[in-house]
């Protein structure tokens, strides 16, 4: 008699389920927790291919990420074991807005500062930031005289709404020095120490202004054309976030002892910024740790 009543219950719940819409059974996760592949897979199962319109990424950014993919995964998509086991997600954002601010001063090598706004809405609540860099990519290997540069980066608070009490704008200013070498395809400026608290506090809109002061080996004549270095540094950078996705769908490498945590993977504890130009191997942080910080 138990079996039959059990069967009756199963039949009843099956009847209920069949009436309910499939979606109601599989509540789509809300935006913050949705993992990349699950919802498009469900969409294909229920109503066909995921045709959501997408903005096209910048060609240079896409080229950089394809190179990074080749460094981290095989052709079949199997993750290689050569990268740090700490992060399983890398997101590249291009600024959604940028404005030129104060003009530069050619004589002192100061470039005009650029105002950048990054929208980090795609970072989900389960993705924890481990490292973040500003990425300047050069369209082709730019040959310019080696130069010593100081990057001045200010992160601004969002404009306060009139209702709340006016508060002194809380901006962080940091300087980081680095040297350009010939034939670089990109440079990375580590901004982990600045972004970590903002991303951890669910800040998804990052407003910053960046300017460089570069002293090249040959003194610049005031009338000289802008050097390739200047034109390169005026192109807006991309923001690269190395994250650890803590959701069940993401791949969590077992932390094996032979993986020594390389200094480049540990954000500077001193709160300072490390800027290290990297050559071809930019996608593999191991080389960076060999550069002088």
């Amino acid at each position, binding site marked *: 008699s138990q079996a039959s009543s059990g069967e009756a219950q199963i039949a009843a719940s099956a009847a209920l389920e069949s009436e309910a819409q499939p979606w109601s059974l599989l509540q789509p996760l809300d935006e913050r927790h949705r*993992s*990349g*592949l699950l919802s*498009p897979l469900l969409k*294909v199962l229920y109503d066909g*291919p*995921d*045709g*959501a*319109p*997408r*903005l*096209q*990424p910048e060609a240079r*950014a*896409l080229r950089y*990420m*394809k190179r*990074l*993919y080749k460094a*981290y*995964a095989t*052709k*079949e*998509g*199997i*993750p290689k074991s050569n990268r740090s086991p700490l992060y*399983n*997600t*890398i*997101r*590249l*954002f*291009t600024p*959604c807005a940028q404005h030129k601010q104060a003009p530069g001063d050619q004589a002192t090598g100061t470039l005009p500062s650029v105002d950048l706004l990054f*929208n980090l*809405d*795609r970072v989900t609540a389960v993705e924890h930031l481990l490292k973040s860099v500003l990425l300047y990519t050069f369209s082709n290997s730019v040959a310019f005289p080696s130069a010593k540069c100081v990057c001045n980066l200010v992160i601004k608070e969002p404009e306060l709404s009139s209702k709340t009490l006016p508060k002194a704008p809380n901006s962080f200013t940091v300087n980081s020095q680095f040297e350009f070498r010939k034939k670089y395809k990109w440079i990375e400026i580590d901004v982990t120490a600045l972004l970590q608290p903002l991303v951890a506090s669910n800040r998804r809109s990052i407003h910053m202004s960046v300017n460089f002061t570069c002293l090249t080996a040959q003194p610049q004549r005031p009338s000289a054309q802008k050097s390739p270095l200047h034109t390169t540094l005026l192109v807006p950078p991309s923001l690269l976030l190395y994250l650890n*996705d803590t959701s*069940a*769908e*993401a*791949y*969590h490498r077992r932390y094996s002892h032979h993986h020594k945590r390389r200094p480049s993977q540990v954000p500077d504890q001193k709160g300072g910024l490390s800027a290290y130009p990297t050559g071809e191997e930019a996608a593999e942080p191991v080389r960076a740790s060999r550069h002088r910080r």
Partner: protein
Amino acid sequence: DQETVSSELKKPLVPASFNLSEYFKQFLFPQNECELHDFRLSFSQLKWDIWIVAPRKYNPRYCKGDCPRAAGHRYGSPVHTMVQNVIHEKLDPSVPRSSCVPAKYSPLSVLTIETDGSIAYKEYEDMIATQCTCR
């Protein structure tokens, strides 16, 4: 008597068309044994190539085939598998036999373009079957 014995001895032991190796094969290996099969999927078939940049091809693989009645250590099956087969054969055929299913998986790295134009490299767990079992 001698005549029947000699005529019996003259008869071939097995029919001429009989193939001994085929005969033994049915005991040694089940015909379509539970094992891993490939299925090379290109994301363009799902019309996902607009947002999945890499990899081009994805082979999730799958498990298919019959499970032997005594699926012991060969498939890493627990003893429960044999119990279920015995129930199916001796007690109640409505209880299904053991099935050929994946036992282990490997991850997959995916490069995607998000709706806001940002680019994401992500590694997903359990995306490629690497071993089958009977359960």
